């Protein structure tokens, strides 16, 4: 049987979903991370609990949520609480296993910039949305994952602005900061997967089928190290793609 055709987004979503474990409590946004969680829940992680910064716990949306505050996340959810409560009782207290992060820049040590492009914060070249919930998620969730297309401008050597902590200048600095969360565990791109090594530097640990080390190196803003144990990811299965395309995002809004 010839491999199934899939988009870059589908590839990232499928691989991210496999990183989730049954029973994980995941702090999640809408879009691709939401699809990855729902896919995991329908396959290997039926007891996954999704919580949203809007204060929603255990949503069971009847349609694809289009924003973090979509009313479909509320009707039929397990619990709804205030925003102060979701950040303090859940996240700061340490009830969150997994956070999904995004940002315009992710650097060599998994640090994230979602605030400004350019050196001067007070005169931004490009004003990005800002932290939202990500500063605290990056610090306090047990594990963080990032999904992003593999492009050089997204992966600079060092972020222009430190919105959310990865391993800072290296794992030792993060450890000294005594954050409860373990930091970025994996960055899933459309070329493969990067994971932090002993020093906290992101190295290429897996390639998707037909992708090459050269492509990954060319599209990374620092001299990308390749794991001695470089793996190839398992292709998306028919079942995974069917769930995504037929059940979760039938209009293909986030699957392109």
């Amino acid at each position, binding site marked *: 049987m010839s491999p199934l055709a899939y988009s870059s987004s589908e590839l990232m979503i499928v691989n991210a979903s496999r990183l989730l474990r049954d029973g994980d409590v995941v702090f999640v946004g809408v879009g691709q991370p939401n699809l990855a969680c729902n896919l995991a829940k329908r396959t290997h992680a039926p007891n996954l609990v999704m919580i949203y910064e809007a204060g929603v716990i255990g949503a069971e949306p009847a349609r694809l949520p*289009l924003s*973090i*505050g979509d009313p479909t996340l509320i009707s039929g959810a397990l619990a709804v609480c205030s925003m102060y409560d979701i950040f303090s009782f859940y996240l700061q207290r340490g009830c969150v296993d997994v956070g999904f992060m995004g940002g315009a820049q992710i650097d060599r040590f998994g640090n994230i910039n979602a*605030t400004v492009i350019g050196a001067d914060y007070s005169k931004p070249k490009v004003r990005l949305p800002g*932290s939202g919930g*990500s*500063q605290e998620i990056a610090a306090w969730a047990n594990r963080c994952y990032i999904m992003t297309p593999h492009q050089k401008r997204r992966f600079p050597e060092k972020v222009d602005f430190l919105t*959310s902590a990865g391993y800072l200048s290296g794992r030792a600095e993060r450890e000294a*900061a005594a954050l*409860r969360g373990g930091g970025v565990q994996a960055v899933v791109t459309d070329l493969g997967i990067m994971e932090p090594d002993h020093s906290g530097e992101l190295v290429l640990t897996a390639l998707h089928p037909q992708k090459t080390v050269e492509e990954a190196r060319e599209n990374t803003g620092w001299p990308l190290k390749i794991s001695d144990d470089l793996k190839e990811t398992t292709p998306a299965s028919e079942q995974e793609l069917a769930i995504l395309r037929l059940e979760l995002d039938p209009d293909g809004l986030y699957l392109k």
Partner: protein
Amino acid sequence: MSKLISLSEAIASFVQDGDTLYAAGFTHLIPFAAGHEIIRQGKKNLTLARATPDLIYDQMVAAGCARKMVFSYIGNPGVGSLRIVRSALENGRLEWEEYSHFGMISRLQAGATGLPFMPMKQTAATDLEKANPRIKRLTDPYGGPDLIAVPALNPDVAVVHVQRADQNGNAHLWGIIGEQKEAAFAAKKVILTAEEIVDETSIRTDPNRTLIPGLVVSAVCHIPKACHPSYAQGYYDRDNQFYLQWDQISQSLENTQSWLDEWVFDTKDHAEYWHKLGRQVHNRLRVKPRQSTPVNYGEY
């Protein structure tokens, strides 16, 4: 004594030029009707505080109401960039003060509970702390690591929309409850808009649902559909099409101005705005009922 007045009267009486305003509602119950009335009345030099400025503040900035923005995330939720606020920040036409969501919401929590600040654990992402001197370090008197402190936010006025309230401002709300309660207690004055005005006895059937008590409310306004294009859980849907449309409109200053003229300045009030949206939109946003299971309080 009833606090029920018209929204135009409430805005005229309780919002002054130069005020710090908090229009509450995280992605839900966003009080667009009040925002539009503030635009209509030409209020100026406001400091607009909100975790997520959303379209409501994009429109108020476009209309020239704002001097400063206090926020934690500027985006058009589910769509992309918040073009007008973003460009005003990039071009230095708007002052700003920035926090994380938790920082912003902790500021309200402090303001609402009468504390000068709230502590938060460190995150090691220190650039925002360097950029914003109002974020401070706090020594733990129990010998643990330093904490972060954010200062209380006590807006001059909060506008809070709810599903139902009595004429004194005792209010039931449900669905995403974001920071409505905190904003109401933190603010010096509270303008409450409500989908429905109900009898006090109806509020009293479910006191645990009353998140905002009348004793903190200055004015109550009956404004059905006040949140469009945002939504009120159980009453109407979020108008995602408008959020997409705004992404187009707000790309041009001219289109933005025409939109404001047509939909805000040239409409007398929110009822007219809603009517003007037309039956197709009304139908698209209609939702089927899904009732909660009642609880028994007992006759004691």
